[in-house]
């Protein structure tokens, strides 16, 4: 639901790699016989042998702010995850558990009551109360703040303190996603006094933040690095930091990052450039790990009035795309073909008995250019022009655009690749006018909750993120049913119905998934490789290797 921003933000930052994955939680081996490659998902790197004074971590861009209201992209989130905590917590195995809220209840379908954990201290030593929770949550609804997460609160009627350590949220209609979102930046809790005092400097290098996480904000050398310090008063003994200090360095150039890993100047980093997998996989400077992800690379059909307005043509196009080839060329075989718009692990909350069937029970579009050509011929779109947008952001985007062009040609269309500057490309996600005349564009859509509604909710009629203006009444109803249903089995069934319709109609074409990647230098170990690093205090688990 809120992921485009990240797609757009990340694309904007022109990062070398954007990430993806399939395979849920288990540490299994994925053999791709055709591509002749294999990779392993790691649940947890070897446990730390002891404490470490400090370690250095690379990020592809400097966060624009540490204000949780604007934290919707990799750079701020992977830092904030260690500093500020939310009511709930998104864990590396993609489950959600209580955090600053020690428990929560749902007495009526439109009421959520959060019990606040007692004895939690902010970094400045003050104690967390319901007042801080109310101030932090209400902030998202203040138009003057312009929170990136206001959509989470669209069904919220009121947020009030109903006890010194109790907060009650009233909704206008049942919303199953709201509670899950309390594990993201939507549910981040900051000291009310700090918010009031810092004003417009809140979250900036000058103002910093004052939260409850295992690390506190240390210093921020604008443009260069940001340092976190171990917080001795941290409430959660299980996640007590092993490092005294973490220094994040901002390195926008992918080769510079890889070099810094190899020279040992940087101890590690998330989002390893895919074209450096080989190099770092065999490096003596450290080890490359892969973990669970929630991202799917998908081609958005931006114009449903053009030749791709016919669902048969969209099907033909998808069948003509050599997705195996893209995985091989784009990410060195470290990925899987996606049959759905969400990764399989999004269904983890569904009853185990249903899960397998839901994942399997979708229309499949195997690579078959000959049959695809036939279908397209029948639809009578031969020789029609389609425009595929791309941008020189990273090797994957370029390779996908070329594969799309090839596929379109194979079914008789007349494709044209339009190369946009990164900033222009990002406007495709924000500005309907910019999408004019663009038939297809690529997104790396990641979810920040473990729920397929994160994606399917964004395809409802009229949603801002429903870029092609696709509309299907049956689909909308299924999404509404799922959103309003708290029972996991019933919600999964409704979401699965929505998924089937979406994959039958293909408003977006699913391409492939790719694991979360992390590099650890020889000095450190202990992290759990998982896309949850955006919300989970992963740095607290990193310590000395020996």
């Amino acid at each position, binding site marked *: 639901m809120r992921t*485009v*921003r990240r*797609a*757009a*933000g990340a694309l*904007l*930052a*022109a990062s070398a790699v954007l990430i993806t994955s399939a395979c849920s939680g288990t540490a299994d081996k994925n053999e791709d016989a055709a591509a002749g490659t294999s990779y392993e998902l790691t649940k947890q790197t070897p446990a730390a042998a002891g404490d470490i004074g400090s370690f250095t971590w690379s990020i592809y*861009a400097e966060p*624009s*702010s540490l*204000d949780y209201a*604007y934290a*919707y992209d990799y750079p701020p989130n992977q830092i904030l995850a260690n500093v500020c905590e939310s009511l709930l917590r998104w864990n590396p195995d993609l489950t959600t558990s209580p955090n600053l809220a020690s428990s929560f209840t749902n007495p009526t379908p439109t009421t959520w009551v959060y019990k606040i954990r007692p004895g939690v201290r902010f970094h400045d030593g003050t104690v967390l109360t319901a007042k801080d929770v109310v101030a932090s949550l209400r902030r998202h609804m203040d*138009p003057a703040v*312009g929170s*990136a997460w*206001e*959509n989470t609160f669209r069904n919220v009627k009121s947020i009030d303190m109903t006890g010194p350590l109790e907060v009650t949220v009233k909704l206008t209609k049942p919303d199953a996603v709201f509670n899950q979102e309390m594990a993201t930046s939507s549910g981040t809790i900051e000291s009310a006094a700090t918010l009031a005092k810092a004003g*417009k*400097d809140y*979250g*900036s*290098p*000058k103002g910093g933040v004052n939260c409850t996480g295992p690390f506190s904000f240390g210093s921020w*050398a*604008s*443009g*260069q*690095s940001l340092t976190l310090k171990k917080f001795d008063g941290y409430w959660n003994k299980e996640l007590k930091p092993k490092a005294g200090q973490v220094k994040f*360095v*901002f*390195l*926008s*150039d992918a*080769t*510079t990052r890889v*070099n*810094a890993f*190899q*020279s040992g*100047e*940087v101890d590690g980093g998330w989002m390893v450039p895919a074209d450096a997998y080989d190099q770092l996989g065999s490096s003596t400077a450290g080890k490359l790990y892969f973990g669970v992800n929630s991202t799917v690379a998908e081609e958005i059909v931006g114009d449903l009035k053009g030749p791709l307005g016919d669902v048969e043509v969209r099907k033909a196009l998808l069948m003509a795309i050599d997705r195996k080839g893209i995985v091989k060329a784009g990410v060195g075989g470290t990925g899987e073909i996606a049959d759905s718009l969400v990764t399989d692990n999004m269904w983890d909350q569904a009853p185990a008995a249903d899960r397998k069937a839901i994942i399997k029970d979708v229309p499949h579009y195997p690579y078959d250019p000959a049959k695809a050509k036939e279908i397209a011929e029948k639809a009578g779109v031969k020789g029609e022009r389609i425009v595929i947008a791309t941008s020189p952001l990273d090797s994957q985007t370029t390779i996908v655009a070329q594969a799309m062009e090839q596929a379109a040609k194979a079914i008789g269309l007349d494709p044209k690749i339009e190369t946009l*500057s*990164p*900033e*222009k490309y*990002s*406007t495709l*996600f*924000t*500005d309907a006018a910019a999408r004019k005349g663009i038939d297809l564009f690529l997104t790396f859509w990641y979810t920040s909750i473990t729920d397929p509604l994160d994606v399917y909710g964004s395809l409802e009629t009229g*949603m*801002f*993120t429903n870029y092609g203006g696709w509309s299907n009444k049956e689909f909308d109803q299924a999404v509404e049913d799922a959103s309003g249903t708290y029972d996991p089995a019933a919600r999964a069934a409704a979401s699965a119905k929505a998924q089937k319709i979406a994959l039958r109609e293909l408003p977006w074409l699913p391409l492939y998934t790719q694991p979360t990647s992390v590099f650890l230098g020889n000095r450190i170990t202990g992290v759990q490789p998982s896309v949850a690093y955006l919300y989970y205090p992963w740095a607290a688990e990193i310590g000395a290797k020996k």
Partner: protein
Amino acid sequence: MSRTATRAIGVVSRLAGMAATLLVTSFLVFSSLYLAPGDPASFLVRGRSAGPEELAQIRHRYGFDEPFLVRYWDWLGGVLHGDFGRSYVFHQDVSSVIWSRLPATLLLIAASALLIAVVGVAAGIVGALRRGTRTDSMLMLLVTVGAAAPAFVAALLLRSLFGVKLGWFPTIGNGTGVLDRLHHVVLPAIALSVTFMAMVTRVTRSSMLEELGREHVEVAVSRGTPRWTVIRRHVLRNALGPIVTVSALLISGMLVSTSIVETAFGMSGVGSLLVTSVNQMDFQVVQAIVLLVVAAFVVVNFLVDLVHPLIDPRVAAAGSAR
């Protein structure tokens, strides 16, 4: 009119010209970004589902709905007070965003300037004096290679050889403390100045050769004046004009080219800031940096014009005869 008075008037009129140039530039900079495609308001919401009402609110809050000239006037007034507005991306004052990155860039330019002036000129002098020898042809080969080496290629080579392989120099960051900063700036400065060094060497060499062939030099030599005195007094002094002009222009132009080197070495400077700001449509920051670069250019030009008559009396004479 006395010569000093003429000079003073010249300086004042030049200063006025400088101010006018900056004013015109500020207008061009402001209007060009104003005309740039893309709606900053829709960028500011960053993909959130913002309705037309919210967009209108944002436009109002940032003053996008004001008439162009009003916005320009407000901006200019701020700039004159050192207030370049607030960065959309960093949620901070533009001046503090730029100030925090300026020292690294200035150090990089200073180090490169030193390399250009010392190494470039020295190599040019040696080449001219040893014309036709093996030393000269070696130098010319290096100059050809150097002039053809783009900064990013030089950065790549230097980084992987002296940083990663040999481990002599750090490959990322600005460093802290004086010595550490200098240690960090060595490779970037070489990468940045390689091309410029080569150009200055070439200019110095040919300018020296031209002077060496002059009659008065030959006369001085035939009169038995010591060789080094001839070179210093007659050759170098006269050759210095073009050398200073070229060096100064190259150095002031360097502000623009630092971005590649800064990015390659993970340095945080104004150059890399400019690139990210352009990409992120952070208009206020882009405006401030462009204005800064132009100002640096204009000021350096002005200083060169002031210095020129001092090193080359012929220029001064020509100036007062006009």
